């Protein structure tokens, strides 16, 4: 079976005054119809990996890879016109904060219709029906009201659901969710995750779930990549997360305060230079 997405030796670099800065340094993985978690702290390159796949790294940033293939077809550094056809229609992205990713002067309904119309070519009534369907699919109880609402008139959780509705309307094969629930309250968070999970499962999509929250990813995903300083340092089945072998992953897990295990002092992470460049435990992460 060919993977939906195949990434080998992906690199993203930015020129700076003191030489080139490598934000992503040789990331490799395959994505099937599964939920893949990408975890790391700020600056680990997790978001940049997502953006590079979608061709969203702005110049002067440079993306190189030995291979970046969607269904066996290279999508590395495609011309913007071809990338735009792909983006949204075949790979979609949900970002962290709906406040910043929704257009504030356009109603929710029109935004969903616009994204659907662009990719399906269908207009008018069909787009409207689809938008209302999608709002229902993300379990918005009163889809007509939300359809006519502006982003500031709805809550954060509702906004994020509208974002998911918009991104899933053109039926993409892959959804990249970059911290989709970090701006939400816990009770809303679980609800949004459940909706996303169901839609991804029902449609047989591949999901790349980018997050800083190790526990959440462990509970939500099938497989987890742990990133540090632009590289994948460990790859694990999500249910084996507690058995992580890399000291960085262990350190991250241990530094979290836990409700069920009171400790006098939290253990802190002693970063080691060897984590940046040492050999990776799994030589080819992401075998299906």
């Amino acid at each position, binding site marked *: 079976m060919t993977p939906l997405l195949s990434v080998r030796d992906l690199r993203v670099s930015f020129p700076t005054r003191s030489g080139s800065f490598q934000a992503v340094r040789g990331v490799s993985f395959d994505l099937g119809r599964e939920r893949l978690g990408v975890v790391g702290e700020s600056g680990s390159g997790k978001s940049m990996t997502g953006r590079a796949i979608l061709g969203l790294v702005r110049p002067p940033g440079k993306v190189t890879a030995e291979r970046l293939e969607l269904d066996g077809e290279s999508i590395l550094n495609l011309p913007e016109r071809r990338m735009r056809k792909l983006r949204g229609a075949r790979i979609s992205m949900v970002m962290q904060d709906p406040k910043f990713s929704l257009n504030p002067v356009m109603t929710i309904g029109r935004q969903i219709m616009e994204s659907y119309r662009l990719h399906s070519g269908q207009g008018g009534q069909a787009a409207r029906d689809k938008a209302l369907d999608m709002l229902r699919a993300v379990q918005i109880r009163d889809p007509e009201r939300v359809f006519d609402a502006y982003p500031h008139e709805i809550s954060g959780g509702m906004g994020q659901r509208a974002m998911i509705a918009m991104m899933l309307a053109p039926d993409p094969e892959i959804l990249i969710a970059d911290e989709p629930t970090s701006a939400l309250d*816990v*009770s809303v968070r679980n609800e949004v995750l459940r909706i996303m999970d169901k839609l991804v499962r029902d449609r047989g999509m591949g999901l790349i779930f980018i997050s*800083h929250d190790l*526990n959440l990813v462990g*509970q939500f995903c099938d497989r987890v990549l742990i990133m540090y300083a632009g590289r994948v340092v460990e790859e694990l089945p999500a249910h084996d997360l507690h058995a992580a072998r890399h000291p960085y992953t262990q350190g991250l897990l241990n*530094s979290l305060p836990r409700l069920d295990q009171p*400790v006098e*002092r*939290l253990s*802190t992470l002693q970063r080691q230079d060897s984590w940046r460049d040492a050999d990776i435990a799994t030589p080819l992460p992401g075998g299906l």
Partner: protein
Amino acid sequence: MLTIKDLDVWFGHPPERVDAVRGASFVVARGESFGLVGESGSGKSTILRAVTGLIDTWSGRIEVAGQPVTGRHRSRAFHKTVQMVFQDPYASLHPRHSVDRVLSETLHLQGMDRIDQRIATLLDSVGLGRGFRFRYPHQLSGGQRQRVAIARALAAEPQLLLLDEPTSALDVSVQAEILNLLADLRRDRGLTYVMVSHDLAVVAHMCDRLAVMRGGEIVEEMTAAALRQGAARSDYARDLLAASRGYAAG
């Protein structure tokens, strides 16, 4: 150390008046660490802001170290007793003031002597070396900035620290360092903490007792031990506890 009785806080005028806090009461003893938890908009930060005088539309009773406060005005003695640390270390430091200037200005305002020496001690006590003294905020990481913000709060040698989500903008490994620092400072200086957080595990780790808030009201007060055992009495606190245990498919 801190007594809040029947506190109401509102914003705006009728008919658009929003009641952000309604009838909140709690008492924090000297040396205690008290948590306020709840979801966004539950009024937990608003209580801290009313205590420090950042909001004047409130009624009820606020007493700090036995002294009642009124409206927005706070005495010099108040600022010597109470200091606050904010959530976002990126927004709470002046981008064009060096660490040295931030701290010396605060020390001047507090009428302290031996400023030069005090800055060095403050930096030491928050685990920043002297080398950080002449840096600007953009030359510091998020955790280092939060350390500077804590040093600034300590400059007045306060007894009560109000902590508004002090680690929620930080990575977990940095969060652990800052929480350890706060725990050490409390032990060494006998400080009293009131800590606002949406993270129940953080509050259980840092606090002895806590209040759960929802829609501006305190729904339940409990001990950290009860929180850990999941022994919440109200439905809302139970739901919040269940939700924060994580995502369960279904």
